[in-house]
């Protein structure tokens, strides 16, 4: 059976994964205790897979449990049921090899930027000179050359996020979990960060799971998009979008694809609303 593709913009609505998926969720459910004690279902049998290498975006309305998915994948939280795997292994086995970045960068404010970036290396026991060398290299690559000896609160938001990315690079994690990391930045900086991210993915062969509620961002970054409904979250749709990088934000094609995706996402979510409410 031929996959259903929209040939104009190369969207594949029935994607499949070959080989070991980078991130894999199988029938994962998770509840939280709410204030009055009654458990609230956050994730309802969520299943998805992401391809190795490249960026997969999870798109969904606020409160749809997107952050929960990342927290479970990182190993910070445990699912109530279902299987979670990263590259075929449970997250527990990969402590220290999973990169995690949120909207609030959590750089340590009492340490200088250089120390922050070098922290993963310090934790692994790398010698100081080797560490400084590596940090310097990362700073140059990310355009942070002057900021090594500054404190995080002394540099701009964009630079802080770049420093946080630098810290991830230093940890040499092959898989990254990113939770709306560029939300707090202005549009231009956001675009630059997105381009930077794509560059890094291609250079280092990373596999990234990127949560966002912005369709534009998803279309620009992703090879696969997973659409999540509002809580209790279910996977409403998954599709692959195989346009080569670099993607031109200003082209008409790009604009049309965004429209298409947006309409599709809207209709899928509305369908879901009607079915379950």
């Amino acid at each position: 059976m031929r996959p259903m593709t929209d040939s104009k913009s190369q969207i594949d609505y029935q994607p499949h994964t070959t080989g070991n998926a980078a991130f894999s969720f199988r029938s994962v459910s998770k509840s939280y205790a709410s204030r009055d004690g009654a458990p609230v279902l956050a994730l309802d049998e969520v299943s998805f897979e992401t391809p190795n290498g490249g960026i997969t975006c999870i798109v969904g309305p606020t409160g749809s449990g997107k952050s929960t998915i990342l927290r479970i994948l990182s190993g910070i939280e445990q699912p109530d049921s279902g299987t979670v795997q990263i590259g075929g292994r449970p997250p527990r086995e990969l402590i220290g090899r999973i990169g995690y970045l949120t909207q609030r960068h959590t750089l340590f404010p009492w340490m200088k930027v250089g120390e922050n970036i070098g922290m993963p290396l310090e934790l692994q026991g790398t010698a100081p000179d080797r560490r400084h060398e590596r940090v310097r290299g990362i700073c140059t690559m990310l355009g942070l050359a002057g900021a090594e000896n500054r404190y995080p609160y002394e540099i701009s938001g964009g630079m802080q996020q770049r420093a946080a990315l630098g810290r991830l690079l230093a940890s040499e994690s092959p898989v990254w979990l990113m939770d709306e990391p560029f939300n707090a930045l202005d549009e231009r900086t956001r675009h630059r960060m997105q381009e930077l991210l794509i560059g890094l993915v291609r250079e280092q062969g990373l596999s990234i799971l990127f949560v966002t509620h912005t369709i534009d961002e998803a279309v620009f970054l992703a090879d696969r998009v997973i659409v999540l409904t509002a809580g209790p979250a279910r996977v409403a749709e998954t599709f692959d979008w195989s346009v080569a990088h670099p993607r031109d934000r200003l082209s008409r094609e790009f604009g049309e694809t965004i429209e298409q995706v947006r309409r599709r996402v809207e209709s899928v979510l509305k369908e879901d609303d009607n079915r379950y409410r």
Partner: protein
Amino acid sequence: MGEKRKDTHWADRPAGKLLLGSLLPGAALFSWWLAIRTGTAVVPRFGEVVSVLFHPFVVPQDIYSRSLAFSLLMTLIRLSLGFGLAVLTAVPLGFWAAQNKIIDRILYPLVQLARPINPVALLPVATVLFGLSSLATMLVGGLEAWRYDVLDQVQLAMIFILWWGAFFPIFLSTIHGVRSVRAAYLETMTLFGATPLQSARRVVLPHALPSIANGMRIALGVSWLVLIAAEIFPGTRSGLGYMLCTACKTSDYQYTFAAMLVIGVTGLLIDWLLLRLERRVGHWQAAER
């Protein structure tokens, strides 16, 4: 078009601060001078006090006391030992109690009961417990103790009450500091593969330090008050408080006033040093909010 330069308020400029800051001391000096002139109060002459301050190594003739310099030294030694002991016990215990529920539950009632007890009021109790033994007594025994002048002047009872006064603020602010560490920071460390010890050293400690430093500053203020009061108590043979009181008894008020001034200035200096420490370890806090 030129920019409007933002002017510093005159009260924030060095000259302004100096002027405003010297108003009250100036008024005090003036009242002192007035009292001398009109003879309405029993106060020493200006010159006499200044002479004592400028000759700190001279042993006073008419009162049974050591020199001003030695008195200051003894007071500072006692402070360092008592306060130092408090820091060494309160910080580790605070860390432990903040992370271990059981220890916290065990210590909590005792801490809340003991904290409000004024350490100065505790001195008679301490004297009963420790007698008049000193560091020298501990090291070489009661008979030879008198040979070791400085060590013999550091009474265990006094160290005990100094410790009591300083322990609780430091202990509680350590717990507060450790508990207030953001979970996000600890999670980040764990995700990078840190061991609990690494997290404690690189995240918990720096994050808690401003709170601990603040507790230390408060504790030091308490200790300073307690110490001077305790030195007035019988059983002491030296120290600023001792000099102040003894001179009062023999009406040699120039020593009293001199001791008072030294007490005030030293207290101010120590507090200022700790304030600087607090600012240094907490430079990042404003940004966190």
